[in-house]
């Protein structure tokens, strides 16, 4: 069985919570679940909805048109008329009316607050899921008795229309991309997470702040993003692993220090969760239009790594790897995500494992030189506090000791040292099996090339439509050799992305890769399965 359910209501009415509880119940029954969360940038009022698909097969996307629409208020009925298809079942608030709709008592724990328990009750009954399956979720909420009461009331008020069976075994836990990034960073040896609040990266800050003692990390919230990244560089200089998190606007403030990280060769991971811009834009919606900004941010030439996970499993693994890569190469790593990957929830089966690789450390021979010139461009690290060692990091061009120089020969040598490091990084990335991932119908000569969270929807529809999917996980240094190899022999190449100007396509073009058709979306929403299917059938 596979169904898509939309739950809509006022912001603050517990819509997100209802979706997450439903996802938990379905996951416990053995289904794969994907939940898309659509909410405006406000705390009360407005219209929120979640669109949740569950299936017996792995899925990471949802349909725009739903099998079941749960409208907890009058506005939700109007808002989701366009999401109706033939046979859609409506459950509406008992105070509203719509022809053919099932009515349910969507009661609030307090006026204007938390209808989530009653929503869960109505849906579980509709699916024929035993009442007991929802109880652990409902009873873990505050005001437990009141929640349980409205849950039971709604459950008993609705007829059963489906029989959602319990499957054999659980497929994983319900996690958001942001939670996977947080867990990955912890398992990559994170010591400090430093961030200023900004949607959609803030959930990582909140998640880690809540669990910092359990994870053995420190979480710092400084005065602004400039303070954030400079503090993180200080932490790394003194020998501890730091990651910062923000979105486009905050990253813009960090770019001055991105160059400092490049010049001073200080390891840092920047999680950049894209949202719809430009400027304040549409803060709680998604886009893939910070790509070129991340590739080119900062003044001067210095190596950087830009890595973009598509799935929650990749978000976990690449967050972990990002810390190791930053320390291995002593340079900034940008972990590029977006609202869609960060805040959607997925059934995820994570095999957590701590992987903390030791960086190249100074062995203690002779005088320490922070910027010693080596063949691979990587100088051994030492940290302040060690007897007999003077560690001089700097934003100025410098000699091997870290003292300012301006003569032509020294400047050229150090630029070349850093470019040697870039060459070393490129070799490393090309040596990774996952620098480019191939999915969908692997034998097809019709190719979709895409990146980031958009690949979730693309891969969910590609096999059925006969497309091979190619997506690089590393965008800088760009593994063009690998992409060329995978694309070879393709009759048709489509580029699918969430950018009005086609930023990913421009990156491909820069690397000599031509595409035949572009599919672009730029309304702040991700691609939905049914939508992308009909677009691909037309082209």
């Amino acid at each position, binding site marked *: 069985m596979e169904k898509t359910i939309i739950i809509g209501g006022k912001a603050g009415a517990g819509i997100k919570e209802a979706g997450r509880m439903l996802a938990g119940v379905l996951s416990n029954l053995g289904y794969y679940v994907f939940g898309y969360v659509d909410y405006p940038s406000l705390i009360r009022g407005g219209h929120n909805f979640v669109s949740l698909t569950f299936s017996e097969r792995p899925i990471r996307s949802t349909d725009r048109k739903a099998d079941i629409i749960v409208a907890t208020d009058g506005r939700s009925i109007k808002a989701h008329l366009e999401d109706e298809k033939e046979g859609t079942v409506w459950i509406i608030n008992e105070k509203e009316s719509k022809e053919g709709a099932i009515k349910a008592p969507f009661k609030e724990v307090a006026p204007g607050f938390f209808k989530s328990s009653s929503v869960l009750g109505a849906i579980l009954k509709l699916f024929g899921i035993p009442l007991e399956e929802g109880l652990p979720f409902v009873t873990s909420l505050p005001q437990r008795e009141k929640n349980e009461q409205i849950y039971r009331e709604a459950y008993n008020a609705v007829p059963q229309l489906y029989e959602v069976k319990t499957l054999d075994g659980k497929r994983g836990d319900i996690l958001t991309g942001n939670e996977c990034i947080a867990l990955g960073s912890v398992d990559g040896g994170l*010591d*400090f997470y*430093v961030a200023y609040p900004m949607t959609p990266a803030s959930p990582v800050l909140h998640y880690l702040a809540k669990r910092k003692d359990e994870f053995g990390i*420190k979480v*710092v919230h*400084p*005065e*602004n993003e*400039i*303070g*954030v990244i*400079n*503090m*993180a*560089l*200080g*932490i*790394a*200089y*003194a*020998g*501890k692993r*730091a990651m910062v998190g923000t979105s486009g606007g905050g990253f813009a403030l960090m770019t*001055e*220090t991105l160059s*400092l990280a490049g010049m*001073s060769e200080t390891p840092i991971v920047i999680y950049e969760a894209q949202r719809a811009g430009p400027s304040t834009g549409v803060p709680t919606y998604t886009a893939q239009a910070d790509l070129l900004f991340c590739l080119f941010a900062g003044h001067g030439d210095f190596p950087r790594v830009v890595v973009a996970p598509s799935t929650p499993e990749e978000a976990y693994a690449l967050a972990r790897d990002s810390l190791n890569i930053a320390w291995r190469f002593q340079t900034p790593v940008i972990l590029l995500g977006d609202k869609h990957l960060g805040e959607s929830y997925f059934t995820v089966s994570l095999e957590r494992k701590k992987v903390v690789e030791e960086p190249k450390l100074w062995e203690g021979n002779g005088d320490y030189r922070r910027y010693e010139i080596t063949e691979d461009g990587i100088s051994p690290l030492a*940290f*302040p*506090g*060690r*007897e*007999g*060692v*003077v*560690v*001089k*990091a*700097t*934003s*100025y061009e410098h000699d091997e*000791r*870290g*003292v*300012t120089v301006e003569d032509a020969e020294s400047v050229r040598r150090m630029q070349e040292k850093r470019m040697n490091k870039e060459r070393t990084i490129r070799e490393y990335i090309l040596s990774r099996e996952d620098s480019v991932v191939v999915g969908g119908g692997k034998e097809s000569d019709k190719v979709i090339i895409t990146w980031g969270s958009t690949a979730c929807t693309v891969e969910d529809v590609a096999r059925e439509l006969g497309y091979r999917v190619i997506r690089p996980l590393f965008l800088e240094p760009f593994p063009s050799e690998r992409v060329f190899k995978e694309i070879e022999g393709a009759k048709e190449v489509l580029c699918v992305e969430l950018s009005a100007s086609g930023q990913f396509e421009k990156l491909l073009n820069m690397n000599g890769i031509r595409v035949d058709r572009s599919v672009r979306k730029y309304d702040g929403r991700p691609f939905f399965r049914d939508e992308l299917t009909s677009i691909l059938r037309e082209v």
Partner: protein
Amino acid sequence: MGAVKSLYTGAEITWCRLCGNFGLMSAFVWAVEELAESIPLERFVILSGIGCHGKIVDYIDLNSFYSIHGRVPPTATGIKLANPDLKVVGFVGDGDIYAEGVSHLIFSAKRNTDITLIVHDNRAYSLTTGQFTPTSPSHFRGKSTPEGPPEDPMNPIALMLEAGATFVARGYAGYTEHLKNIIKEAILHRGFSFVDVLQPCVVFYNTYDLYNRMTYRLEDVGHDPTNYEEAYRRAKEWDYNSKDTKIPIGIFYRTEKPTYEERLLHMSYD
């Protein structure tokens, strides 16, 4: 000069002859040497922003982070958070910290981060060849404001007292021993210590004569640095604008409260 030489990298010094930075550097190195028995050299990390002052980290052979304009405080805070055993001293300029980095400065004081900031306050942008800074007087004729700045100077001593700094002092680069004693106290202070150093620039704003004539030492007038109201009154005596009022130097205020590192890292008090 033998003692200074031991802490010197050998880099060519490019400050102008008679620059106030020499007095400041001597005072700091002297303080470090006097503290050497209790604080081994490897436990010092010095930082600087961008401006003539910044070169100090190239000259002194201690661990250092030559940061960017205005950003010393967060970097210094990060270093202290990662390794609380380190003694972290940031050298900053007046344009650097009172203009570009003023938000970071205020937050360092607000947090009581256990770092020391020493401001090379020459009241001019000198490396960029002479524009007005936040502490330039309104009669300062700079290259960006040939008629003088259309705004009055700020008073960083009063600002830091208001922001919650637990050690607030003013020194003068012309009085090296007095400045050395202030810097020692600042380094030993547990919490955020702030020292505004009057530092003449012989090219763009030569104030030696002014400071030689007008400064007096707070300890000579029996100032009680534990008295906040008295500290604030002394801070307001000179507004960084007038040429004919007395200028107090010395420690205005010192007090104790838990540091940022203690609160954030849940470190125990000694």
